Structure formats: structure tokens, C-alpha cells
């Protein structure tokens, strides 16, 4: 590497042209002058759209302005104004750049607005989630049921006037802990069996079919699909307790013989309402909770949250911290993909052997994380404006930089080559994976899939390039892309991405040497941080599994977020599971799910 690239990083001044998002916003105001208006609240941006006309606006965004990717849909409760708001983030896949933010406000007592699913099928799960959490009635949604909580859940938990069964206080820290802390266990105050309320008119029968009629009725049982022999359709529950579902995840499938007629994912078994916990927490306290979203890539989760809050607090990050962040995030990507491939091959029947070969190297990365942050998986390493600690002196008895060099130049490339030798050419894997679970690029975009799933379908969209954060614009790497959109391509693209990550890591190492001893955090972190301004902030990063976004709103001088939403990539990628599996055999479903690469900590939140 030449010396010129090792100069301290400077960001060029912004160019004075309109971004695609600004262009589209201006154009929308021309097209729909009576429907859209600027969001004039302090600290907010985007357009407020007359709720009943949201479909028209979305349609012209998609068809005329090229904003064809609906990334995030979420609700916000403004209790004082008596309003509920749905926030949409749309992106331009072809041109990249920031989002067009649409906001539709509805009355709190009667939150009715049209569904966007006819235009963006990817809104399906997210609208169901917003219905579940806030009670929005999305007209025209094909299957508006609860998604994360269960049918017998009373109320809509993210509404500001909803209280959990054992409610202590609105915000942490709780007054009962200090200065007069009398220890108690929450379950003493909240005994099992007495902590449940059912919605009015809802009776727990104990019979699964009675409770879940809606799931089963929603499936398609079309009887005229096969000519000749008359066959019955059979409904089978795969999961929730099934090793191939990577956790507690359930797929209800209708089968015609062995062929999938319809599939519906059922999730929420690991639901803990991460978002409400986040709204009770202070800004700081959320950081370790983000580890638990996608617990295989906690460093990237940390980064996404840190970036979002830094935007809100208007903080800058020292240079060394940025380099270490990229180092950590790219190592996490490799870690996650090694894991994902191990499990994908497990699901394809290559039991344990390739997985364990991949894990040998993953262990070394985790050793490095442990020596740096103190934990192998739930790292809690990033802070607002920097990092918790600098790199350690040594890892497993080897000086840190030597360890990293050995890892990046030697061990990791060789494990990728070995993986190639072991599996890529394997005829059984090819027979199982090629041409199975095909997702077309049009569907991939329409269903808001992200990450490797999107790129394996031939859409070269990577946030590190489309809307660069941290120092990615100074780094030289290619966006990995494959064009067939089947399981095999999703396998290959993960190998490609790991190779690109290694390229990035090779570029980061000299910067780590150069910035040795430089500060890693701007100011001494405060234990109680207050927001300097009211407003919203949306930050997104390219997580190993796809686009991870955080939407945070707060009030001025407030110590905690008013709204804290996570746009979880594995959750939204599951939208494509049903359409991808139709027509394939039941044994393929396991592999198709494996190729999406979900983590239930993030799906269920």
C-alpha cells in the first residue's frame, strides 16, 4: 500500500447538487400538492401525507420517481397530540442515497389507513407488526393478524398508555434501586398465572385449532392443482421446536404430497418487546440490548445504534475509533457468514463437518472480540462518539496486530479456500441447491429483502456503497452480486462477501498501526445523557444479514428515546420465504430457510 493512502482521512466538502431523495421530495410536492406537505416539526424531516391518499403517493414514488424499495414501516404514538403516525422509509435502489420519508397521521381512537401491500408486498409483515403494536387498521391488507404477540394478547403494547403487568415506572433508572434499595424478585410481585389479561370476549380453550383458526384459514387449499389422482391437501406444522428452524420458529405449510402449496411463517416465540424495553431505557442502556438482537453479529448492531444516536446528538467520532469499528464490523460479517454457511450446509445434510471446520476460524475471531471487549458474542463495545476500549496488547498470548495479520492474511483466506474445495463443487450440494428457492430481482425488491438475499438475486445494493457510513467511502471493495437467486447463489455470495471483507480488512490494518495511541472516544462518556434536541433520527448499516435500521425519536432534554424502532433484516427477509418455497418439496424448505439466514433474536425482538 502506498503512503498516500495512509494520510489522515478527510471528508470532501458536500457537493451542491440535489440528492435523489431531495429531487423526489420536491417532485412529489408538485405532483400531489394537496396531499403532501413538509414535516415542519423541529428536528423532523420528510413529508406528511394525507393518510387516505398514501397509496397514490407510494405509487408515484415507485413508478415515476424510482423509489421502489420500501425499507421500513413503523408506527409512532404521539399521545399528547392524540395521534398515531406511520413512518415509511423508501429508497432508490438504482441511484442510492438517502430515504424519502413519508408520514401518515391518523386519529388515535380510529387508526384506519390504506395498506401499502398491493404496491409493496414487503410491507406485509411490517404492517402486521404495526397493527400488533399500535392497533393500526390497514385497509386492504390480506392477512392482518397479530405477528409478534399471540392471539390472546390484550391491547397494543407500544401505545404510550399501555402498561405491562408488572409496571414499575415509565423510565429507568427505577427509584426503588437507590438510595433505599430493598431487593425483590419481579416474579414475587408478578406471580405466574396471575399476570395475564385476555382481551374482552376471548376465551382460552386450550385447543390449538380454536385459537389459531386464522392461521389455518389463511392458507390456500386450492384443490384443482393436480390433474389425475385426487389427493387431499395436508397441513403440517414445521416447528416451533425443530432443529432446522434455527430457533423457535414455526412454518405452517399445506402440502400436496411432498410439494408445498402454501407456507406461512409464524413467529414471536422469543418476543420480549425489545422496542418497549428500549423506550423505558436511557440511551446508554440500549447499547447492550442491541447485542441481543442478532446475537451472532453484536458488533454491527452496536454500530447501527451508535450511528443513529450520534446523528441525533450531533457527535463526531475520532479517526481511530472509526477504523476499529470497521475492523470489528467486517470481522463480524465473516463470523456471521461462516456460521450461516455452516448451518446452511447442515440443513442440506452435510451434517457438522463443514460447520465445525468453519467454526475453528470463527473461534479465533471470537477470541479477539473477547480480548478487546470482554465478551465473545454480546460485546457491548461501541459507545456514542467512539468505543469502550482500545485494542488490547495481546490476544491469546500473541501481540494483537500479529494476531490480526495472521488471521486476515493467512487463516481466514485459507478457510475460504478450504470451504470452496470442500463444498462448492460437491455434486450433492449442487443438486440440492441449484435452481431451488428462486427469487427474482423484481420480487426481491418488491418484498423489501435485504443483504445477501437481495444481492444473490442480482440486485447490487449495498448500503456501504449506496449510502456510505463510517469510512466506507474511503475503502476499496466490490459489492458482491450473483444473478440466479437460488440457494446455491446465496451460498456463493456469502463466500464472495467474506472475500470482500478480507479486502477491506487488509486496507484497515495499516491505518490501525498509524493511529496507534490516538484517542478512541471524543469525550468522557456520561452515565446519564440527555438529548440536545427534539426530533427523529434514522440510521442504517449493512449488517451481515441485511439492512439494519434504527428509528429513534426523542424530546428535548429527555434522557430516553420516545420511540425506538428496529428495522430487523431477518424479520423482513422472511416475507420472501412463502413465495420462494411454493412449488418446491418440503425437504427444500429447510434449505431455503437456511439460505435466508435468520436469527430469532432479531426476528422476534
Amino acid at each position: 500500500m502506498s503512503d498516500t493512502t495512509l494520510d489522515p482521512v478527510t471528508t470532501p466538502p458536500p457537493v451542491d447538487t440535489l440528492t435523489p431523495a431531495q429531487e423526489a421530495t420536491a417532485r412529489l410536492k408538485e405532483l400531489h400538492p394537496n396531499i403532501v406537505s413538509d414535516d415542519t416539526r423541529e428536528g423532523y424531516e420528510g413529508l406528511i401525507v394525507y393518510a387516505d391518499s398514501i397509496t397514490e403517493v407510494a405509487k408515484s414514488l415507485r413508478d415515476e420517481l424510482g423509489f421502489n424499495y420500501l425499507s421500513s414501516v413503523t408506527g409512532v404514538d404521539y399521545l399528547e397530540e392524540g395521534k398515531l403516525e406511520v413512518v415509511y422509509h423508501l429508497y432508490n435502489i438504482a441511484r442510492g442515497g438517502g430515504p424519502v420519508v413519508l408520514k401518515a397521521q391518523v386519529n388515535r381512537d380510529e387508526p384506519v389507513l390504506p395498506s401499502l401491500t398491493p404496491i409493496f408486498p414487503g410491507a406485509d409483515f411490517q404492517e402486521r407488526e404495526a397493527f400488533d403494536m399500535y392497533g393500526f387498521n390497514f385497509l386492504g391488507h390480506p392477512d392482518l393478524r397479530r405477528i409478534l404477540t399471540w392471539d390472546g394478547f390484550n391491547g397494543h403494547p407500544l401505545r404510550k398508555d399501555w402498561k405491562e403487568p408488572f409496571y414499575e415506572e415509565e423510565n429507568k433508572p427505577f427509584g426503588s434501586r437507590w438510595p433505599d434499595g430493598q431487593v425483590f424478585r419481579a416474579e414475587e410481585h408478578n406471580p405466574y398465572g396471575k399476570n395475564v389479561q385476555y382481551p374482552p370476549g376471548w376465551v382460552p380453550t386450550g385447543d390449538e385449532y380454536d385459537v389459531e383458526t386464522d392461521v389455518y384459514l389463511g392458507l390456500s387449499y386450492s384443490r384443482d392443482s393436480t390433474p389425475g389422482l385426487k389427493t387431499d391437501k395436508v397441513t403440517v406444522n414445521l416447528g416451533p421446536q425443530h432443529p432446522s428452524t434455527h430457533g423457535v420458529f414455526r412454518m405452517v405449510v399445506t402440502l400436496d404430497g411432498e410439494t408445498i402449496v402454501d407456507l406461512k411463517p409464524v413467529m414471536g416465540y422469543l418476543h420480549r418487546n425489545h422496542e418497549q424495553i428500549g423506550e423505558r431505557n436511557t440511551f446508554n442502556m440500549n447499547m447492550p440490548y442491541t447485542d441481543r438482537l442478532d446475537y451472532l453479529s453484536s458488533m454491527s448492531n452496536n454500530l447501527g445504534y451508535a450511528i443513529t444516536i450520534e446523528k441525533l446528538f450531533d457527535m463526531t467520532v475520532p479517526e481511530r475509533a472509526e477504523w476499529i469499528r470497521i475492523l470489528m464490523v467486517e470481522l463480524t460479517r465473516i463470523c456471521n457468514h461462516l456460521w450461516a454457511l455452516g448451518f446452511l450446509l447442515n440443513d442440506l445434510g452435510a451434517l457438522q463437518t463443514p460447520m465445525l471446520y468453519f467454526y475453528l476460524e470463527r473461534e479465533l475471531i471470537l477470541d479477539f472480540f473477547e480480548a478487546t471487549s470482554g465478551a465473545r458474542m454480546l460485546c457491548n463495545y461501541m459507545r456514542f462518539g467512539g468505543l469502550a476500549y482500545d485494542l488490547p496488547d495481546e490476544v491469546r498470548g500473541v501481540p494483537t496486530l500479529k494476531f490480526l495479520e495472521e488471521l486476515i492474511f493467512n487463516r481466514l483466506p485459507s478457510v475460504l479456500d478450504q470451504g470452496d474445495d470442500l463444498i462448492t463443487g460437491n455434486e450433492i450440494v449442487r443438486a440440492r441447491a441449484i435452481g431451488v428457492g428462486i427469487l427474482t430481482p423484481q420480487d426481491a425488491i418488491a418484498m423489501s429483502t435485504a443483504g445477501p438475499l437481495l444481492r444473490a438475486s442480482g440486485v447490487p445494493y449495498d448500503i456501504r456503497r449506496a449510502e456510505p457510513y463510517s469510512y466506507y467511502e474511503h475503502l476499496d471493495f466490490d459489492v458482491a452480486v450473483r444473478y440466479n437467486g437460488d440457494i446455491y447463489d446465496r451460498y456463493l455470495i456469502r463466500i464472495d462477501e467474506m472475500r470482500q471483507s478480507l479486502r477491506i480488512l487488509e486496507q484497515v490494518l495499516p491505518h490501525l498501526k498509524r493511529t496507534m495511541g490516538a484517542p478512541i472516544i471524543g469525550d468522557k462518556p456520561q452515565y446519564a445523557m440527555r438529548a440536545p434536541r427534539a426530533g427523529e433520527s434514522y440510521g442504517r448499516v449493512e449488517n451481515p444479514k441485511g439492512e439494519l435500521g434504527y428509528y429513534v425519536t426523542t424530546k428535548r432534554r429527555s434522557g430516553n428515546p420516545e420511540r425506538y424502532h428496529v428495522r430487523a433484516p431477518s424479520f423482513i427477509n422472511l416475507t420472501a420465504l412463502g413465495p420462494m418455497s411454493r412449488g418446491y418439496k418440503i425437504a427444500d424448505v429447510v434449505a431455503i430457510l437456511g439460505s435466508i439466514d435468520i436469527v430469532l433474536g432479531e426476528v422476534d425482538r
Partner: protein
Amino acid sequence: MYGLGIIKGMGVVLRHFVRSYVDDVKWVNKGGRYYNDEALLVRQGPKGEGIKTVFYPEEKLPMPERFRFVPFLVTDEPPPGQRWGHDWCTSCGICAKVCPPQCIWIERGKQPNGRPKPEPEKFFIDIDICMNCGYCAEFCPFDAIKMDHDYELASYDRRTAHIHDKERLSKPISYWREIAPKKAEAEELARQMAEAAKAKKKDKDGDGREQRISEAVARQLYYQGLQY
């Protein structure tokens, strides 16, 4: 040729199989590959080859200094005949306020006249709730709470054994110096510098500028942890 891919893959497996014995042979004259601390470090390190298994509990991996598990309270060296010395904790409550899952309960000590005394009367940590994030240790201004390296906390009864009281939590400073020598040293230095800066502040002729620099250095030491 059809089937070549499988054969190539089998070759990889065969290579692993052979390698797992090669490393055994290398260690024959050096005390064996297993139950040998030196060999453990090498085979778990970046150059490790062959079988990676750690035979827990006979073998245990050394913990890095920053490893964090359920916290403990730091006390002075115990006087002879006692198990703990004076608490470093002043019951300021920052750890309880910063704790994300709110698993710390502190009852502040009281003087006879009812005014608060800077030491904890009671201190509880519910280790079932603790998420080992390390914020308490990070934000404690007195270095009085630290993350432990003792991860073997399994017990038969979660109802009684999992709420740790002050007695269970307190450990002398020598224990911290033992498990995290470099970090303890850096903190010691930072404390001394802070002390010196304080003394200078009291001395009215002192140069304010110099004092600010030393504070910054102390802060940096504290947060970088190992840049001693």
C-alpha cells in the same frame, strides 16, 4: 468428471484427519499436547493446528483481562483475621442508575443523625438479571465495582443463591490485581494523578493549565484501560 467435487471434499476431510495426529506427535517430547498449559495456549492461538478441544474442567482457557462476568465489590486489604477491608463503594448509586436491566439494589448507609453516610448498608445484585454488560464497572468513579472472572456460578436453587449480597460480592483489591494486573496498575496510576491534581487545586499558587492536562491524561488512561 462427475463426482470430482465429492472426492475433492473428501480430500479436505482426510487432510484434517491426518493433521490432527501430526500436532500430537510434535508435542510428544514437550509434555504432551493435552493437560499442558503451554500446549493449550499454542493450540488455541492463531497458529493452532489439529484438534482444538479444551478438556474442561481439567483444562481451562486463560481469561483475557477484560473478560467480564457478574460484578464484585472492591474492598481494602482485609485486616488480619477478617475477610474484607473497608469498602471502596461510597453508595453514590451511579452503578444502580446506569445498570440496563436494573439488577443492582443499594441501601445507602446512614449516620446516627440520619444524614447519608458514604458507604453502602446493603448491596444486592440479582445475577439472574445481570446481563454482564460491564457498565457498572465502566462508570464507577471510585473503581469500587469490577467485573469478575469467575464464571462457575451454577447452583441448585435459583431462589436463594442467585441474589448476591454484600458479603458474597466483596473481594479485596488484591484479587482484582491478580485477575487484571495491567488494568489495575493503570487505574492505580490514574487515581494517583487525579489525587495529585486535586492537591494542586487546593494549593492556590498551582498552575491551572498543567492540572487540566494531567486530568485529561488520567481520563485517557482510565478509558483506554491498558495504555499505562
